[in-house]
Structures are given as C-alpha cells and as structure tokens.
C-alpha cells in the first residue's frame, strides 16, 4: 500500500480522528517519558546543564526525515502527497523570535506544556492559559499585521530546492551536523555540575 494511507483512500476518512487520538497518545508518551514534562529539564539546553531537548528533538527530526526518504525511495509513500507547510519568510522569522523569547521565559512550548499539565505541573497549566490569551490577542490585532503575515510567500518550498542540493546529500549533512552537536553537548555536560530538579 502506497502511503499516505488516508489521503490515498486505503483507510476511510472517518478513521482520521481515531488515528489522531492514537498517534497523539504516542506523541504524549514519548515526550513525557523523555522528560519534556519538566520545564527545568527543557530549559537546561539553553542554560547549558541538560541537553535532553537538543538530543531528543534532532534525533526525532532526523529519524522521521530519513524514514520518509527511505519510504519514498522504496516506493512505499508518495512524497508529493505529504503536507509541506508554505514558507512565509518574514512571519516565520518574527514568529520564531517571539516564540524563542516565550520559550526562554516560560520553559515550555505548546506540546511540552500539555505534557506538563497532564502530570499536574501548575506552571505548565499557567503557560497553557497564557497561550490562549496570546492566540486571542493575536486574533484581535490581526488586521494590524495582516500585511506582514502574508508577505514573502514562497509557497510549499523544500530546503533542498532553495539550496539546490539533493535530498540525500542534505540528509547526510544534517546527520553529520547533529552528531557533531551531540558530541559537543556531551562534552559540555561532563564539565557542568549536576543540577537537581
């Protein structure tokens, strides 16, 4: 069966939300079991005492990326049927910067704050309440920033297209970069005294 299974009609559309629940559970379990329900563990990456976020995040991105390339190479998935988010340069950069400030202040991102609140972290609950307020503020002030929001639309572009290299070469370079980063992180961790949390 050539995936993606639901868009290719191998599985009826009605099952979409059932899979959403099941896959979401897998998401929640792996995040929580990796330590993403703790803001102090997450923020450790940025203060330099615990690089778990760096390791888990890049290992996951690379695993999924290589898996999709392999599936595509074997003819098990139609890459053109995958959802590629459109790239809006200005809003991706500015939105990313705002999220980065929020990340370093709040110690969570949306997915990890759900994990934190699921196990009773009240700071994660407060962060989540903040997100509702933030989305509401954004929506109400949207007309003021609408122009910037829609500017610089490059469409559903891949990084390999804009760099002009093959997917395989890019994947190889990203793996090398990640392994280098993991090596530096583990050296740093050895030098820093343990923080208890």
């Amino acid at each position: 069966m050539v995936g993606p299974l639901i868009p290719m009609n191998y599985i009826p559309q009605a099952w979409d939300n059932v899979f959403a629940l099941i896959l979401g559970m897998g998401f929640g379990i792996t995040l929580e079991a990796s330590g993403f329900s703790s803001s102090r563990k997450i923020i450790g990456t940025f203060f330099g005492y615990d690089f778990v976020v760096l390791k888990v995040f890049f290992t996951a991105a690379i695993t999924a990326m290589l898996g999709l390339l392999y599936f595509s190479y074997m003819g098990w998935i139609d890459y053109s049927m995958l959802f590629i988010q459109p790239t809006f340069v200005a809003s991706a950069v500015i939105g990313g910067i705002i999220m980065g400030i929020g990340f370093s202040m709040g110690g969570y991102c949306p997915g990890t704050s759900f994990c934190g609140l699921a196990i009773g972290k009240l700071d994660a609950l407060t962060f989540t309440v903040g997100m509702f307020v933030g989305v509401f503020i954004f929506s109400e002030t949207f007309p003021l920033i609408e122009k910037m929001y829609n500017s610089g639309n490059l469409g559903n572009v891949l990084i390999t297209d804009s760099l002009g290299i093959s997917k395989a070469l890019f994947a190889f370079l990203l793996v090398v970069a990640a392994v280098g980063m993991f090596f530096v992180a583990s050296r740093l961790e050895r030098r820093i005294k343990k923080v208890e949390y």
Partner: protein
Amino acid sequence: MKKKIQSGTYYLNPYLGGVLLGLVLLATFYITGRGLGASGAIKSTVVEAVKTVAPAHAEQSSYYGKFLSDDKHPMNNWLVFEVMGALAGAFLSGLLFNRLKFKVEHSPKITSRRRLMFALSGGILFGIGSQLAKGCTSGAALSGMAVLALGGFITMIAIFGTAFVFAWIFKKNKI
C-alpha cells in the same frame, strides 16, 4: 532503575526517546499525510469560544473568519483529537513513572509566584508567535524539518537561536 522510577526521576535515554518520537512522527505522516502539532488545537478552541460568545464578531473578524465555514466545525479538528491523545499519553507515562503530582516546578532561587508570572508571559508570547509563524515547535519546526520544508528550518533556527540568547539575559530569573 527501580529506585529512579520510585522517585519519579527515571527518563528514557534521550536518543531512544528521539527515535521513538521520530517513529511516531513517521507513522503520522504515513497514515495521515501530515505531521504532529500542538498550537493548532489552542487556536481551534479560541475560535470556537469566540464564536460561542460573540458569533457576529467571529464572522466579521478576518482571522477567525479564515477558520469558520458552515460545514467545518472548529473543534472537529484533527489537531484537537491529537492533543487529547497527547494529554492522555503524557498522563499514562506520568502514572507509569511515578510523576503524577500537583506542583509548581521552579528553581530554589526563585519563588513560585515569580515562576508562574514568567510561565504566563512565556505562554502569551508563544501563543502570539505560533499564530504568526503558522505553527509551533511541533507543527512548524519538527514536522516541517521531517518533510524538509524550508519554513520548518527557518522557524526552528529562529526559535532555538532566540531562546539561547534570551536564556542568558534571563539567567538571574532561572526557571
């Protein structure tokens, strides 16, 4: 390991955790054709709440209006179900590893009150930023990188780069 589980400090090896998370993401793409997300569920809830409280306002708004149409119920959204699953999954993992407990987690150097103020401000900023970038760390950065989307890499570098810089600025206010 048993001792660590008893004290609630047992975590998966980060590389194993990463591979498992990557496999969940791969399965999500293989089955549904899209990645995992989180902030979209918040947006759906806000749209639904505004629609309930002030329907006329929601219809007129250029942002809420994007997600409102007669046949599409904002809460009947893939991401809302996915996030409900994620909450249940995290709860199960917390149960398994003895981490279910009400508490405000913070550095001994700061008060709970200060931690909660910072968490609230961080959440507000993340809410605004995720709408602007059309996705957060999960939906834009992680899922975007998995399919090699240029925007995923841009958002990832902007989030992590900024967080590193600001973490040093906020160092005294340790989380």
